[in-house]
Every structure is written in C-alpha cells, then in structure tokens.
C-alpha cells in the first residue's frame, strides 16, 4: 500500500493510465465492436472536444492563486458559433484564415480573463464566471436557434484528414505545444508561480505576465476545442457547450494535476478526459440515462478530489 502511494507520488500519470486501461477493457467487454477499424476516427472525433476542454482548463489551475477558468465551455461554444455563422461561407472561411482568426479570438478572451485576475486583482471565480455569462449571452444572441452546416473542411476533423484521424491533429497540436513549452523556462515558471506566487515574485518572476499568458494559453486550446466541436456536431448551437462545463474540470482532477497549482500538465488532463470519455461511452452503452451519467461525472470528480487529497497531502515534502 505504502509502495503504491510512493509510486503514485513519483509518477502521478499512472493513475489515469491505469483507470483508462480498466475502462477500456470494460468498454471492450460491453461493446466488442468498439475497436473495429472503421470506428476509430469517429470515436476519436467524439473524444477530441472532451480532451481539449480538459486541457484548456489546465493552465488556469496550474497558475495557482485560486486559479480556475469557468469560461472554457462557453468559449468553445462561442468559437463554434463564430466559425459557423461568421466565417464559413465567407472568404475568411478557409482553414488557413479561419483557424488563426479563431485561435486569436480564444487567446484574446483568455488574456482578458488573465488581465482581470492579475492586473485588476479580481478573484478568478468571479472574473471567469462573469466571462461565462457574457459569452453564453453572446452565444444565445448570435445563434438563438441551431444552424446546421454540411460537409466542408470541419467535417474532416471529426473524421480523417488524409490518412490521419482529424482528432490526432486537434488534440496533438496543444500537446506538442505543451511539450515544447516544457523544454523552455516557461512551463517551470508557470508551475513555480502556481506553487507559491509570492516566492516566485520575490525571485523576480513577472507573475502577472505568467498568469495572463496562462489564461491566454487556455483560451487558445479552448478555441481549438470549439473548432473540433464544430467538426463533431456540424452545426452552431448555443446549448451544446453545457455538457463540457463540469467534465472539463473533472478531466483536470482525474488527470491528477493539483487544482491549487504547481503540479500537473496538459497530458495529464488529456488522459483524464480519455477516462471520462470511456466512462461516458460505457454508461451510454449500458443505457444509463443522461441524468445519471451527470451523477457519475459528479461522483468521478469528487472521487478524484478525495483520492488526490489523500495521496498527496501526506507527502513527505509537505510534512
């Protein structure tokens, strides 16, 4: 037992990986056709928005100071609606133009959150909850009724782009970005700020800038999530994002990142999202009602918090 605890502390990713393997096996037993080759791309296409929502919520948590970004899900909805109602069908609707525009919007909205939090010293809950309402209001205003699209480049993202499943690109891009950041001083600085902001400040770290960039990074990943969501649902819808509010947070917690900052990463959240996706898939196949799946999400999130607290608060470093 003690050995297992020690191992978990050294390699926190082992928990979501083991949980994912278990859930994958359970899925195989219940739905044997789960792994048939034709299923792979659509399955990954459904998984992508889950994973991106989880990853997008991560930098805010990592930056500490009570950091949380509740506006990730409505931002995904906003990007989805801007893409469908504002860009597709116009000269800006080509992927080469649309994707950078949307990523810039995501980064800007994230940066506004970051500015409110670090420069204007708003509590992160309030700043991002305010943004949540502004964005969900805008979503409703821009798309009071769902607008459907058919075909186009977005549909490939939920299927295949050439031989590659589209989800590999959408989920792979932020992971590559994160691994690149891990090789620079930025990721370490972010974790240092999250671990103890006052200490980081004393050693000369520009805490404000680090926090603003963390929220902007979350915004960029959320924008990718909005694009992947468009590929999946092939419409603009002001309601769909509701699904992702809770599970974005649950993915971070299940992945094993410290929600108080200082420890964790985007890969962990992606693994957490895979676990949630597999759980969702399994419960769906067992004909569990969507309301009870909601209960399961809540339970998974609570369990992740409780287990995380039990494993990590007894760590020798903190004693």
């Amino acid at each position, binding site marked *: 037992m003690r050995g297992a605890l020690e191992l978990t502390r050294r390699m926190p990713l082992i928990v979501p990986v083991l949980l994912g393997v278990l859930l994958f096996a359970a899925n195989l037993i219940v739905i044997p056709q789960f792994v048939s080759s034709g299923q792979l791309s659509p399955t990954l296409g459904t998984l992508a928005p889950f994973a991106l929502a989880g990853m997008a919520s991560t930098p805010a948590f990592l930056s500490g*100071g009570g950091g949380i970004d509740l506006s990730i899900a409505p931002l995904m909805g906003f990007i989805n609606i801007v893409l469908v109602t504002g860009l597709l069908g116009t000269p800006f609707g080509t992927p080469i133009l649309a994707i950078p525009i949307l990523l810039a919007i995501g980064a800007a909205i994230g940066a506004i959150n970051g500015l409110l939090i670090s420069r204007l010293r708003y509590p992160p809950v309030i700043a991002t909850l305010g943004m949540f*309402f502004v964005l969900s209001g805008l979503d409703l205003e821009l798309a009071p009724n769902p607008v459907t699209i058919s075909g186009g480049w977005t549909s490939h993202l939920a299927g295949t782009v050439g031989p590659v499943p589209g989800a590999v690109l959408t989920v792979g891009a932020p992971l590559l970005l994160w691994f690149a950041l891990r090789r620079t001083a930025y990721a370490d600085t972010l974790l240092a700020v999250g671990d103890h902001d006052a200490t980081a400040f*004393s050693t000369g770290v520009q805490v404000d800038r680090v926090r603003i960039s963390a929220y902007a990074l979350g915004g960029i990943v959320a924008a990718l999530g909005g694009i992947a969501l468009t590929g999946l649902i092939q419409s603009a819808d002001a309601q769909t994002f509701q699904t992702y509010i809770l599970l974005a947070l649950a993915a971070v917690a299940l992945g094993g990142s410290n929600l108080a900052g200082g420890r964790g990463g985007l890969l962990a959240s992606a693994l957490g999202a895979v676990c949630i996706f597999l759980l969702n898939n399994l419960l769906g196949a067992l004909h569990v009602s969507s309301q009870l799946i909601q209960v399961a999400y809540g339970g998974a999130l609570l369990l992740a918090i409780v287990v995380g607290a039990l494993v990590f608060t007894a760590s020798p470093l903190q004693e």
Partner: protein
Amino acid sequence: MATTAPATPQPSVSSPRQSSTVLRFVAGLPVLQIVALVVLFVVTAVTVSGFLSKSSLYSVLVLAAFLGIAAAGQTVVILIGGIDLSVPSLIGAANLVTPALCARHWPAGLVILFVLSCGGLVGAVNGYLINRLSVSPLIVTLSTGAMVIGGGLAWTNNGFSAASVPTWLTTFSSPTGHFLGIAIPPVLVLWVLLAVAVGVVLRHTVTGHHTYATGANRRAADLAGVRTRRIWIGAFAFSGLSSATVGVLLTGFIGSASVGIGDPYLFTSLAAVLVGGTSLVGARGDYWRTVLGALILTLITTLLIGHGASTAVQEIVFGLLIMLFVGLYGRERRLRDRV
C-alpha cells in the same frame, strides 16, 4: 498660562469620542449600495410604467426575497472563506422533488422536513469534505451539486413525473398572499425574520464571533479553541438548508417543477453577496449588506426586463455590472503586499 489649566478641556472629551463612534458607524454603512439602490429605484420608477403599483412592488420584493434567502447561506459560507456552487443544483433538486413527493401523498409537513434536511445534509457533507481534506470548495460543491441535480432529474424523469403543489404553498410564495390577515406576502415576512436572525447570530452571539474568527484565520481560530470544523460544517449545512428552502418556495411560486429553475442563482447568489460588499477573502461583511445586494440585483433585472432586454442581453449586462461592482470591492491584495 492659567487658561490652559487641565480642567477646561474636560467637558469636551466625551463629545469627540461620541462623534468618532458616530463616524465609525457612518463609515461602516454601505453608502455606495444605499445610493445605488435609491438611484436604481428612482430610475425604474420613472422609466418603467406601473412599477410603483402595490402588486408590482410586491412582485419585485418577493423575487428579491428568493434571491436574498438563497444568498443567506452563501454569505455565511463566504464569511468563513469558502464558496458554495451547489446552490443552483440544490434549488433545482428541491423544486423537482417537492411536488413529486406531494403527488405521492406525503403529508406536507413531512415533505418540507425531508427536503430541507436533505439540503442541510448535502451542505454538511460539502463542509466536512472541504475542511477535512483541505480541498477546493469550488470543485467539491460543483461535483456534489451535479450529483444532486442529476439524481433529482433522474428520479422525477426530468420533471415529468406526477406532481402536485399544495395550495397553501402557492399562497405562501405568492406576491398576493396574506400573512395573518394582512396583505403582506408571507415570503417577505420569512425573509425579514431570517435577516434579523442571521444578522443577530452573526454579530451578537459566540457562534457568530467564531464564524468571523474562522474566516479571518482558520489556524489561529483553531489554536484559540474555536471548533473550526464544526463552523465549516455548520456554514455549509446552513447554505444547503437555505438553498433547499428557496427550491420549496419557488415550487409554490411557479406552481410546478421546472427544470433549470435554480440555474440563475449560481451567479446571482454570489453576486448579491459581493455587490453587498462582503469580501471573498473572508471575515468581512454581514447579511444586511447581502439584503441590499439582493434588492439591487432584483431592481437591475426589473429595469432590464422593463426595457425589453432579451435573455441574452440580460445575461451580458448582468455579467458586466457584477464585474464593475466586484471591481470596487471584492478584489484581492496586491502581490507585492503579500511578499
């Protein structure tokens, strides 16, 4: 030289002391909130026709009472340095379960007792988990909230199961209801009683002082002999109880179960507390300020609806206004002051 004898200034000693007490009282008054309330009231009265009629004033006050009661628990939770995001889910679940139980011919008293104790219990679990494991109140209350509302929806088949609302509950929550034969909505009476009770408990009892001590510094309070875990459990239990109360009252108000009825209260319950001037840092503020906050927010909504704003515009304006108010009050300390 003789004129500066010590005897001469003697009588004036008490008067500066008195005036400083008065000054301190005035300085402690939520002046900005009172001014905002008056201005909003005047603007609404001038621009929204029919606002000053008795029935419309009562409607606004009853809506403010729902918000004020929901925010009572939130106030206490924020005073100890926590936050409760399970408020909308508990309101929603209580609203779903109450008519369903009434339809199963449970006696009304038992239904109320059951629903309110469930709310209190969920809150107590929140408080225990957060305090025992030192985890984020945001995440714990969000997840228990999701479980409660999911469970409520599943049990009542998305609110489509048989439902009945007893007439007395409808009367109790109605703006045209009577209390002891007087034409005052009973919900308002309940809110006033609650406000007095919470105000007195917070300011003038040992429990109240322990609550502020816990919010100011949990560790110091612990060492001073305050049972801080009990305070945490109690505060969250009270929040669960007040949310469930609003769920029951709203059932009477709209006369049925309605999916999503609690959702607006996530933001508004927080906003009422923060607009009132209670700080998210903990230990600063009281329930009277929240009462003002609830009145201000309800007037803003009335004004927006009175001018024909769509739900979307209401959400946007509301979000921006809250940011403005919180910007004046609920901000955190500068990092360079914390080094």
